[in-house]
């Protein structure tokens, strides 16, 4: 079945082993835009459109970055942020996938959960922050709970849509071939819904990430990248702020590249649901 599906999907480029020269060209091609933007940044910084204090050159940001990394301040902030992110996201993934799949499979669960979810979901996660802070106090518990609560919604919605989007004809043909409920679920519905669920997890993680940075600014946690950025503003430490933003971007990028693309390669692409 898997083979049949993959062969019908047209592939424009024949994937062959990338040669060393091709790889070099690929790297250069990816670096080029950053060089252009970096050059523009340098020009603006040196031209003095903004005061130097507010718009540091790239060298200054880099040296601050190196200094803070060597002294261990930046890694400590980053570590705390990542732990908070992972615990909140794990919470969200478990809750979101479970409720979403249930809603997709059972009309009753859908009727019960949909009104509540539709009321809670459109409220931007950050709007809950003051409420959570009032209820659970400043600090870690509020931060993790809020992150989990908010990032559960995209996961839930996508799992729900995914289960509903499984083609009726697949379900019926599996049933006519004698698949019982459990097999139907693990062999048809779950693989069919997986692209959506993975998209949901991805969106959920991105959401968790966005909210977390904001929450750290508001919840007064002792360590964390959001807090670093926010605290740096008070002292006009734009270079520390930008160094913090760079770390945030790197972590986000790392999550995307090393977590989600790997999962996608192993599951969805291999099953031929989408072409990589």
């Amino acid at each position, binding site marked *: 079945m898997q083979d049949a599906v993959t062969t019908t999907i047209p592939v424009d480029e024949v994937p062959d082993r990338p040669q060393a020269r091709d790889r070099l060209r690929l790297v250069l091609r990816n670096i080029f835009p950053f060089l252009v933007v970096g050059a523009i940044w340098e020009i603006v910084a040196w031209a003095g459109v903004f005061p130097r204090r507010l718009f540091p050159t790239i060298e200054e940001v880099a040296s601050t970055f190196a200094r803070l990394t060597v002294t261990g301040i930046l890694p400590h902030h980053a570590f705390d942020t990542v732990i908070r992110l992972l615990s909140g996201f794990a919470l969200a993934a478990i809750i979101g996938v479970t409720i979403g799949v249930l809603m997709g499979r059972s009309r009753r669960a859908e009727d019960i959960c*949909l009104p509540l979810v539709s009321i809670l979901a459109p409220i931007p996660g*950050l709007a809950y922050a*003051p409420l959570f802070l009032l209820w659970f106090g400043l600090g870690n518990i509020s931060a993790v709970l809020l992150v989990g609560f908010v990032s559960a919604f995209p996961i839930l919605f996508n799992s729900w849509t995914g289960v509903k989007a499984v083609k009726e004809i697949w379900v019926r043909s599996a049933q006519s071939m004698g698949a019982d409920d459990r097999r139907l679920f693990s062999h048809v519905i779950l693989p069919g819904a997986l692209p959506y669920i993975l998209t949901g997890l991805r969106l959920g993680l991105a959401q968790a990430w966005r909210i977390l940075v904001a929450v750290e600014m508001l919840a007064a946690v002792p360590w964390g990248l*959001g807090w670093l950025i926010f605290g740096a503003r008070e002292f006009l430490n734009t270079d520390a*702020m930008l160094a*913090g933003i760079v770390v*945030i971007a790197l972590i*986000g990028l790392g999550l995307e590249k090393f977590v989600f693309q790997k999962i996608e390669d192993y599951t969805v692409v291999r099953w031929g649901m989408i072409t990589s």
Partner: protein
Amino acid sequence: MGNDHVMTEQGQRTRSIIRAVVTLAAAAALYELLARSGYFAPALLPTIPVIVRTLIAMIANGTMIEHAAFTMYRVMFGFGLAIAVGIPLGILMARFHRVENFFLPLVSALMPIPSFALVPLFMLWFGIGNLTTILIVFYAATFPMVFNTWSGVRSVNPLWLRAAGAMGADEQKLFWKVIIPGASPFIITGMRQAFLRAWIAVVGAEMIAASDWGLGWVIFDAKEFLNADIMLASLLVIGGIGYAFERLVFGSIERATVQRWGMVRMAKG
């Protein structure tokens, strides 16, 4: 027989509505019970009548409407900018390799930076107020727009392109009759996501970078004085506006385009 099918569908729908009402009533009753139990301080967990009264009072004296108007202005401005930039860029990226090669690395590098991380920076650069908030909204909304348009145009079935080409469609026709309708589910999803993000970003940005108007600012300000009723009332307004946009605006756009063209199966709701 067709009539019969309609009947069961209708019965199904009334049952769904009844269940929804029951669920909401149960949730409200549970909340009311918690609030009245005295387990939490009443300042932190006001009862529903108190919240409703606060909401009505704030709407009646016009403050809530003014807050909402400021927030809407910021969100629409930023969202409009994001659409104006995001859709053309996404289409260009999907159609031209050169554009894709230049912008894709940038987009992938900037996308993981939460818009909120930039608030302190933008505050330093652009001061407190509308400009910072609008820029944050723009930043937050652009990426889902670009990304969805890009994947939408790329995911247009090559068979359709070839079929249209074989039937003699020129570039312009191909673009308007095949690529745009084919990519529209993605583009509309992108708009939805972009609006949601814009909505999140505006509240967050207002909490920190707004002067004295805006729904986000009200909530944050209410925390200082332990006014949980004002907070929950503003939450209701924020949720209501978000819900209205999600359902009425995007729902009707979707019905008018994607569903009429038969691109996605009708989902419930």
